[in-house]
C-alpha cells in the first residue's frame, strides 16, 4: 500500500490561493521577528496590540500577525445576558473596533494557554481576563474569556490563520487550568 498526498486535487485551490492571498500584501506587512518566530511571541503580541489607554492601536503591527484571509469571529453577550455572535474579516474587526479603543482604556491579560501542534499548524486555547475603563463610566467593566487561535507556520514565521473568542461576564469562571 502506497501513501500519496491528496495534493493534486488541491491544485485548483492553490491557484485560487495565489489569487486570493495578495503576495504584495504579505510582504508589506513586515512583522517584528520576535512577534512571529514563536507561538508565544505571536499570542503575546496580539494581546499587547489591544491593551492600553484610550487611543489609536498599532493596526500595522496587528495586521502583521495575521494572514490577510483571517476571520475574527466572536461570541459576546448582550445587555440582557444573551449570547450574540459577531463575525467578520480581519479588516472588519479593525474598522469596527477602532472607535471603541479610541474611547476606552482596555487591558486584556492572558491567564494561561494550551497549545496543540502538528506539522505547520497549531491551535491555541488562550484564557484571558480584560478590564475596560469607559470614559463615561466610573466603574470598570470586567470580562473573562477564551480566545482560540488557529496558527500557520509558513515562510519561516507564524501567522494567525483564524481567531474565535468567547467573552463572558466577570462572574463566569475564566479557566485558569486547562486540561
Amino acid at each position, binding site marked *: 500500500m502506497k501513501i500519496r498526498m491528496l495534493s493534486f486535487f488541491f491544485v485548483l485551490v492553490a491557484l485560487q490561493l495565489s489569487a486570493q492571498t495578495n503576495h504584495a500584501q504579505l510582504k508589506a506587512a513586515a512583522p517584528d521577528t520576535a512577534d512571529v518566530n514563536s507561538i508565544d511571541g505571536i499570542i503575546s503580541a496580539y494581546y499587547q496590540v489591544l491593551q492600553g489607554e484610550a487611543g489609536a492601536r498599532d493596526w500595522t503591527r496587528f495586521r502583521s500577525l495575521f494572514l490577510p484571509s483571517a*476571520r475574527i469571529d466572536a*461570541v459576546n453577550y448582550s445587555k440582557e445576558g444573551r*449570547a450574540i455572535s459577531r463575525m467578520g474579516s480581519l479588516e472588519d474587526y479593525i474598522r469596527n473596533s477602532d472607535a471603541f479603543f479610541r474611547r476606552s482604556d482596555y487591558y486584556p491579560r492572558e491567564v494561561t494557554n494550551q497549545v496543540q501542534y502538528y506539522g505547520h499548524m497549531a491551535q491555541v486555547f488562550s484564557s484571558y481576563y480584560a478590564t475596560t475603563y469607559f470614559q463615561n463610566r466610573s466603574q470598570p*467593566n470586567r470580562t473573562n474569556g477564551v480566545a482560540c487561535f488557529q496558527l500557520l507556520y509558513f515562510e519561516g514565521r507564524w501567522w494567525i490563520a483564524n481567531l474565535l473568542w468567547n467573552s463572558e461576564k466577570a462572574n463566569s469562571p475564566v479557566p485558569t487550568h486547562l486540561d
Partner: protein
Amino acid sequence: MIRALLFILLLSCFQAPTQASTSLDATIVTFYQLLSGPAGPRDWEKLRGYCAADAQFNAVTYAEDGSPSPLIGTIDNYINNAGPFFEKNGFEIREIKRKTQIYGNIAQIFSTYQASYTLAGNAEKFEERGVYSFQLIRTSSGWQFLHVFWNVESPFDPLPEEHLPPKSNSAPAVVPKTKASTPPTQPTQKAAPGAYLYKPGEIDLPPRYPGGEAALKNDLKKHLKPSGESYFRRPDGSTWINVQFIVNQEGKVEQFQVVGATEPLSLAQLKALSTLPDWQPGRLNGQPVRVMFNLSIPFNP
C-alpha cells in the same frame, strides 16, 4: 472581545435553525461521514447546514520533497475542488483521536484522522493521515463549523504519539514513507556541526520540542536561573527573558544562551539543560538542518 466592540453583525448564529439540534460529538462524526463514501456525489447541502455561510477551510499539504503548501479558502472553494475528486474517487475518512476544549459557546477540537482512497481506474489503495483543527460556535440549532484547518501528515514528520490512539486499539498503523526511501540528495546539508546555520525564515519545518513549546518553557523554567540583567519588562509590566540557541541536525541543542545575561550559565545549569530531551530537527526540503532558535519566556525574577 467585549460586547462594546461594535463591529458589524455580519451573520447572526441565533437565527432560524438550519438543522436539528445536535451535540458537538455528533457534529464531528457527521463531518467525517459526509466526506466518506464511494465515488459519487456528496451531500454538500447537509455539510453547509453544519457550517457558517463563509466558513474557512484552510489546509497544509506537502510536495514530494516535503516542502509545505498552504491552501487558504472558504467552504465554497473546498466544495468546488473536493467535489469533482469525490465524484470520481472513493474516499473513506475516520477520526482516530480527538481532543476537545469548550468555553461558553465556542469549542476548539484537535482531531486526528485516517483516510483511505482509490483513484478511478486504479485498484491501488492509498492511505493518508493528518490532523484537523476545528473551531465551532454553539447556535440555537446546534454546533456550527466556523474555521476548519487541516494538516496532512508529512512523510518527513510522522504524527507523534500524543496525537495517535493508544497502540492496543489502534487500527493497523499506516507506515509513513521513511525519509530513506526518497531522500532528496543534498549532500551539502548533511555535514556535521559547523554546517550552515539556517534562520527560521529559510526553512520549511521549524524544530520541534517533544511536548511542544509549553513543555519547553516549563523545562527551561525549571533549570534556568538568569541574572538580573537578562530580564526585560513589557508594557503590561510582565518580566521576560529571551533565550537563543541552535537546534542541530540531530536535534541536539548547541550554544544555549540567555540574551543580555552578563554571566555565562553555570556548569550546573548547563548540565541540567543537557538532560532535556532531543528535538525533532528543523527541515529544509525534507532534510534535517541546523537552525537558530529564539524564544521569549515569561519569567519572574
